[in-house]
Structure formats: structure tokens, C-alpha cells
């Protein structure tokens, strides 16, 4: 069987702006691929290309061996956009009917799918309320159901947990896990690093329209950072300029009160950092030593924080 998603050397420009500069990716059934990248890196263009809403300039892109604009593609593909793309005046039932019908379902299978999805997202008892009156988390869940009601084998999830409370987020994680268990392949974009680490089998980091690293969490950390560990110092007061310069010479970065260092030899480097604080008379509130995380990988590769 053809792969749910196979992308090779995909390019796309809008005028003089290059959005995709040769993206290569693939996705296996039941796999969740996290797509991380700073704003403007090309994530949205890539997702929209898979959704058939952007026509690539070059390269290849196929869904189960079909071009994304093929008449059969919509039945295989589901899309959960970042925005809540629902009709606020309609009820959840009516919204699901609309998107189920638009995706090719009708009659009894549609009715069954609506009932199943309403109970899946925990809105069976709110089926007849106005969608606009639902809570943010409920709307998010309905937004996911509207993209999956037709049982797609490939799902594009564009930041599905933006702006929801921790409890709702847990519930959405549960739904994503269920989709994976059903064999659905997911392309998942997020701004939450912990979400990517927790949900995704593999992670691809995109910047300036290119995939600059891809692999499992461990692979990414090892290839980018080796065995280095992260030292984080929380200073009592903002780091003064003199100390900042000293820390910079040791390879540490200071942002406000927080000092970070990727350490090859933690015991020695921590001693040096503490010495520098002591010499400048700066007090330390907290010090932690951790295995390097995806956050550091991202920062190292893109030079930016994920949420910038």
C-alpha cells in the first residue's frame, strides 16, 4: 500500500517569498509526525499543500499515492485547521452533518457517524445547543470531530490545542491517541514542545522552508546535542551586564534572571558558573541540571524559541 503521505523536494513561493524550499517528508500508517517550526517557517504552507489548498511549484506530494487534488483524496484526508472553522449559529449535530455531508457521507452512515462522534467528543448531551455557546475546549473537540467524521486515514492537525485549558488539552491528547490506535496517520503541528514530545513518534523541525532535522525525540537530541546536559540558573535579580559578559564567555546565555548553559562537563562548568555569580555578588534562587530537551534542540537549530 502507498504511504499515507509522501513528500519529496516540495517547493512553493508566493511572489518573491519562498515558503517551501524543498521539503521531503513521509508518514506511515498509525504514525504521528510532529511538525515544529518558528512562525513563518513554512508549516502552514506545507499543511495547506497536503490539504489541497496550495498548489506547489515543484517536487512531489502524494496521499496514498494520489495527488492531493485528486477527487478521491478528500475521503482519505481529514483536516483540523488551527482556527475554529465551524458555524457558530448551528448546533454541534448540524455542524457535524454539514462537514460529514461535504466529505461524502449520507443517509444512515452519516447519522451513525454523527452519533458516534458526538459521544466520542463528549458532546452527546449538548448536541442541540448552539455551537457558539460551547466552551473553548468543547469547540476545539468539535473542530477535531468535523475533520475526522468521515473516517480519514490521514489527518492534518494544525495546533489543535491552542487556547484550551489543561483539562481539555488532556482530553484532546486522549482523542489523538485513539485516532493513532485506529491506524490514522497524523501530521501534527504545535507550538507546545511538551505536546510534541508526548504525542509524536517522530518530529520534523522546519525552518526557512526546509526540514532541518527529523527523527525520534532521542535521535534529535543525540544528533544535535550529543550527551550535553542543560544547566539552568534562576538568579534572584536580573543578571547585571558585567556578569552577563562573563557568563557569555563561558558559553552561557542570560535572559532576564534566567541563565542557561549546555554543558559537556557539568560538574566543572557548574563550579565555574557559581564562581562567577559569587565574584559578582549575585544571589542564586535555584539551579537545575537536566538532560537536554527538544526545546534546546530547537533553540540550537533555529536560533529561536518555539513560541516566538
Amino acid at each position, binding site marked *: 500500500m502507498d504511504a499515507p503521505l509522501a513528500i519529496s523536494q516540495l517547493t512553493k513561493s508566493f511572489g518573491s517569498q519562498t515558503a517551501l524550499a524543498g521539503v521531503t517528508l513521509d508518514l506511515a500508517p498509525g504514525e504521528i509526525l510532529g511538525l515544529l517550526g518558528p512562525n513563518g517557517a513554512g508549516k502552514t504552507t506545507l499543511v495547506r499543500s497536503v490539504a489541497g*489548498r*496550495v498548489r506547489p511549484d515543484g517536487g512531489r506530494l502524494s496521499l496514498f499515492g494520489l495527488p492531493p487534488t485528486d477527487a478521491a483524496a478528500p475521503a482519505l*484526508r481529514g483536516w483540523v485547521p488551527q482556527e475554529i*472553522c465551524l458555524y457558530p449559529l448551528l448546533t454541534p449535530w448540524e455542524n457535524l452533518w454539514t462537514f460529514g455531508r461535504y466529505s461524502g457521507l449520507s443517509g444512515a452512515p452519516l447519522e451513525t457517524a454523527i452519533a458516534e462522534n458526538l459521544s466520542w467528543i463528549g458532546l452527546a448531551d449538548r448536541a442541540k445547543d448552539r455551537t457558539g455557546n460551547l466552551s473553548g475546549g468543547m469547540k476545539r473537540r468539535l473542530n477535531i470531530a468535523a*475533520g475526522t467524521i468521515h473516517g480519514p486515514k490521514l489527518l492534518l492537525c494544525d495546533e489543535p490545542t491552542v487556547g484550551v485549558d489543561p483539562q481539555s488539552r488532556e482530553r484532546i491528547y486522549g482523542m489523538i491517541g485513539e485516532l493513532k490506535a485506529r491506524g490514522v496517520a497524523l501530521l501534527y503541528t504545535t507550538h507546545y514542545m511538551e505536546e510534541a514530545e508526548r504525542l509524536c513518534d517522530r518530529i520534523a523541525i522546519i525552518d526557512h522552508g526546509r526540514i532541518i532535522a527529523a527523527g525520534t525525540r532521542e535521535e534529535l537530541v543525540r544528533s544535535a546535542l550529543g550527551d550535553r546536559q542543560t544547566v539552568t540558573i534562576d538568579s534572584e535579580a536580573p543578571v547585571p551586564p558585567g556578569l552577563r559578559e562573563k557568563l557569555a564567555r563561558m558559553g552561557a546565555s542570560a535572559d532576564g534572571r534566567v541563565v542557561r548553559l549546555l554543558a559537556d562537563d557539568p560538574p566543572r562548568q557548574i563550579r565555574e558558573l557559581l564562581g562567577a555569580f559569587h565574584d559578582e555578588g549575585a544571589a542564586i534562587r535555584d539551579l537545575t541540571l537536566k538532560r537536554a530537551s527538544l526545546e534546546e534542540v530547537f533553540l540550537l537549530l533555529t536560533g529561536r524559541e518555539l513560541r516566538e
Partner: protein
Amino acid sequence: MIFAVAKNRIWNLGHDRAAFVLSYVVPIVFFTLFGAIFGGDSGRDETRKVRVAVVREDESEQARRFVAGLQAEKGLDVLMAPSSRDGTVRAPFTAATAEAAVRAGTVPVALIVPAGFGEKPVRFGPSTDRPKIMLLADPSDPIAGEVLSGLVQRVTVTALAGVPAGSASLLEIERREVLGDKKARNPMIAFYAAGLGVMFLLFSAAGAGGALIEEVETGTLDRILSTRVSMGRLLAGKLVYLSWLAASQLLVMFLWGSLVFGLTMRGHWIGFVIMTTCTALAASTFGLLLAAISRSRMQLVAISNLAVLVMSAVGGSMFPRFLMPPLMQKFGLLTLNAWAIDGFQKVFWREEPLTHLWPQVLVLTAIALVFFTLARRIARKWEAA
């Protein structure tokens, strides 16, 4: 703080240039239009002239002088024969053809000078022995009949009696209204039902077309177009909905007219369905076209207000076209309002055969086709980039 709020709104307006311009242009356009419709100096004489078909069945000198007097009257545009566009001379009006002309709306009023007119002298005072003329009027133009009655008396005095004009009647005028349902309490009901109906149809079509812009703005359109729904199908679906909405609005309007004002629906249903279908299609595609042109909801409101009000003013939704200066009447034909109103008038007022609706059906259908094709083309901007 209050000024900050005001400033924020001014910035918003400034950023939406179309809305900014329209907020100044719309009043000026209206001022100009109403000036033209209700007559500036240029069109005043033209406007006040009453077109009248005159039939002279009497060969007497008195009848000839009376007709010559009518022709010399500045307030009248006397037609002795149907006007022909190619310049050929047509046979003079007869009582039957003149009545047909009034029925068809070619002239608002006809005057028949019957045989034997010259046998009775013109005289003052109450008498049953005065000359008699027949006035055939179309009650949908109540002004024409009244103006003509007055002018006839003046002509009689100056052309026949050779005496100064007084208040007394010299002629007996037998007035007959050749059109109109006797049950209709107000002869203008069919006109207003059609005229106002079409205007509000356009407003609601433009408003409903705004749903498309909302879908664009919320990203829902993107989601829809990633499913099996293509842009063509989406627009066709919206057309079906808008047409249904428009047709039901017209139905409610006419049913209300029949309930409250005695407008007769019986015998007019087929014509009503034909005209409603064409009008609903044309108005709906107009709404779709506006939505496709507009870049924001604010722009849609501004553009549709301008377009609908201008079309309604010029097309006769607010003020009957037959009372407008001739040039404005011709301009009116550029609007779908005029064609729709003419069609409904033919069905309900003039009770013409259904086959006579072909120009209105043809034009409204063509408008719908052109508008839909244009909307579909413009909507390409929302398809995959």
C-alpha cells in the same frame, strides 16, 4: 478615552478605502439621482407632458377644432396613431387600438371623440345635451387622467367656445378605467408588491451573500474546499438557497398584498411563478456577485447599499418609472428591478398573456447567467493558490 474610541473608528474607516469613499459618494449619488427623477430644470417640460392617444370618430368642424386644440396644448403629447420606430406611417388609432394601447401601457390615457360630437353645441350650465367624449384611463397612473381632464376643459374653452376659461364644465367626460381588478382597493398594490419586493430581495440577497465572506474570514471556506465540495458546487448550493429565500420572500409579499389589500392571486399564479423564478435567480446571483467582489463584510455592506439603492431608485422600486423623465425611464432598463417590476405589472395589472412575458424572462435569465458566471470567475481568487 472617548476620543481614543472615535480615533480608532476613524483609523478603521481610513484603512477600508472603499467604505471611506462610499460613505461620501452614496449621498451625492442619491442627491443627483433624485434630482434627475423628480425633475431638474432640464427635464421639467418633458416630465409634465401627458401622452394621450386620441381617436376622432367624428368628421365635424367642431371635432376637428377640438383635436387641433388638443394638439396645440403644450401639456399634452397627442398621438393620433401608434408611434413607429422605423418612421412608417401607421393607421390612426381606433377605439379598440387606443384601448389596447392603454392596456399595454404604451399610453397612460386615451381620448375618444365619438361620432355625433359636433351635433351638440358647447354650452355652460347643467345640461344633458352637451357634447360627450370618452376618456380611457390606466388607474396605475392616476395623474395622467386628472391632468388630461383639466386640459380638455381648457381646450374646449379656447378652441371651441371662444370664451374665457371658467370653472364650469363645457363637455361631458365619460371616464372609464380600462385596467385593474375591481376587488383591488388600491390599483398600485401590484406595483408596490413587486417594486418593494424586488428591492428587499436585493438587500437580503446581498446580506446572505455575506455568509460567503464570513466563511472566507473565519477560514471555514478553506476547510470546505478541502472536502469534496468544489467552488462551483459551493456557489451553486448558495444560489439554490438564495433563490429559495428570494422566492419565498416574494410569495409572502404578494400573499400579504392579497390578504390585506385585495390583490388577486387567482388566475395569476402561473405568471407569478414564472416572474418569481426569474426575479429570484437574478437577485440571488446579484448577491453572489457582490460577495465575490467584496473583500470584507464592511465593503459588502457599503457596495450593496449603493448598488441596491441606485438600482431601486432608477429601476422604479421607489417611484414608478412611468412618472420619471423619458431619459431616466430608459436608464431604468439597465436595472433588474425595472424588468422584474414590468413583468409583475404585466401579470397582475395588465393581465397580458403569459407569452408577453418573454422579454422580461429573457433579460432576467440572461442577467442571472452573466452574474453567476462573473461571480464564479471572481471566486477563483479563493481557490488553491
